[in-house]
């Protein structure tokens, strides 16, 4: 790289300083507030540890992890099925479906919850149809305002993020391998299991780790569902800060949330680093 070709190295300072002001500085304040000494001579560490010990926090952490893991597994499953069908059992117009699913990436996640109210809510279409068809007294399905509803919405919202790396990986898959495997006597399912999926492992890891990151941080869906028992870490931060004005606790919990999130992000970047190239634009 010729030094004269590019601007002087100091040109990177302005954006760095800007980011420092609007991002790193607030981040450091969160850190400071999380460890701020409490009332009555309680040290910062003790206060922090105390908050981590409350049932409120621990339930939120548990829910966050539960939801993230289950949603990610479901996304991986649904995404793999869809990607396999789209790549290896193609039909005319498969590109359109691909576009439809990809537009969901650009849309806010909470809209799904709104749609689900109409579809699966107690006054929704599914319940209405079941009541009419089976002549029931009351709507039978009540999973929407619970973890089930959150999961359903998150799976719908985040499967496209698994689908994209898988489709990219499958599009580069050597078709001749499938044909030769077929000629050797392997049936379609055997080929999927032993030839295609092992090759897709990096893409699955990339999609899965991105999904984990997104589901851990998901806020809009949980907010809209508003289920009593379902509180995740972002929700807890919001409630504590806005509804209760308890900034110190909010910062403590936000800190935990940030640490988990950064760890997942670094893991995702590491996986991408081994995959490289085509997925660079995903961030």
């Amino acid at each position: 790289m010729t030094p004269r070709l590019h601007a002087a190295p100091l040109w990177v300072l302005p954006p760095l300083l800007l980011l420092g002001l609007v991002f790193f500085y607030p981040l450091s304040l969160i850190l400071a507030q999380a460890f701020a000494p409490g009332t009555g001579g309680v040290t910062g560490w003790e206060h922090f540890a105390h908050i981590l010990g409350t049932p409120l926090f621990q339930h939120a952490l548990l829910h966050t992890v539960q939801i993230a893991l289950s949603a990610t597994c479901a996304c991986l499953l649904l995404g793999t099925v869809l990607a396999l069908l789209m790549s290896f059992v193609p039909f005319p117009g498969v590109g359109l479906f691909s576009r439809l699913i990809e537009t969901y990436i650009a849309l806010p996640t909470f809209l799904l919850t709104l749609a689900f109210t109409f579809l699966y809510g107690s006054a929704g279409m599914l319940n209405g149809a079941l009541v009419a068809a089976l002549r029931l007294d009351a709507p039978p399905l009540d999973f929407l305002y619970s973890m089930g509803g959150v999961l359903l919405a998150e799976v719908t919202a985040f499967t496209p993020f698994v689908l994209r790396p898988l489709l990219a990986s499958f599009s580069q898959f050597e078709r001749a391998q499938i044909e030769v495997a077929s000629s050797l006597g392997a049936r379609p399912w055997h080929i999927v299991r032993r030839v295609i999926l092992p090759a897709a492992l990096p893409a699955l890891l990339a999609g899965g780790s991105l999904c984990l990151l997104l589901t851990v941080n998901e806020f809009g869906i949980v907010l809209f569902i508003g289920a009593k028992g379902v509180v995740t870490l972002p929700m807890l931060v919001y409630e504590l800060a806005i509804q209760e004005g308890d900034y110190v606790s909010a910062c403590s919990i936000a800190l935990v949330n940030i640490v988990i999130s950064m760890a997942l992000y670094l893991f995702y970047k590491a996986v991408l680093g081994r995959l490289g190239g085509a997925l660079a634009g995903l961030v």
Partner: protein
Amino acid sequence: MLVWSRPARWALWCAFGALVAVFYGLPLAVIALASVAGEWNGIFPSKLGLLHYRMALSGDLRDQIRASLLTGLGASAAALLAGSWAALALRAHTEAVRKWLSLAFFIPSAVPSVSVGLGLLVAFSQPPLLLNGTTLIVLVAHFVLVFAFTFGNVSAGLHGLMPEFELVARSLGATPGYCLRRITLPLIAPQLATAFSLSFALSMGELGATVMIYPPGWMTMPVGIFSLSDRGEVFDGSALSILLILITLVALLVVARLAEQGHDRR
């Protein structure tokens, strides 16, 4: 080429169609339906009409549309500028420095949006930097959240750019600024367009940070939709949602078309 028998293929296509229809077709269809529904007592809505859209395009809700658009355009433009600046400036550094600075520029996307909002609240609630309660804080929040995406896209574009173009331009006597303006930026125009449209889409749908910091007069569409649904006015909320989706998609298409045209002119 994986499945050989026609009946098996048709069965799989039906399964695929069912999955996509249920998961991805239904939600959009239902929101669209709800946005034009007068009443919805039974399984299907009745009294279809554009009442809710008229509501949305008047008074309060129109302010929300305006707030979202201005925030989106402003934050995306600022993020594109800053992200491109950072990506271009990084090229002058060694591999090691680039790695660490890149990480620093990407980190904002690793932080949950609610925490970004919280941080801004905590940092800018007192003088001399009192942003709490102003519209600027919303712009700043969106800027922080989309910056990493513009930086990533522009970096990828620059990475894929052959260095020969700039070398030849400089050898022909172009100053750095001229080269940047006439060679580098036009050649990465597609990535700039993608960066902008992606940022805009993200900003339009942003909820987590906005709901923490928005001042009373500057409610964005997502916050508005939430408060409408919270109050039980789900039909108005649906109409606003459809508008949100349409604006986002239109913006994406327009930018994509502009980028294509720019490409063709070359």
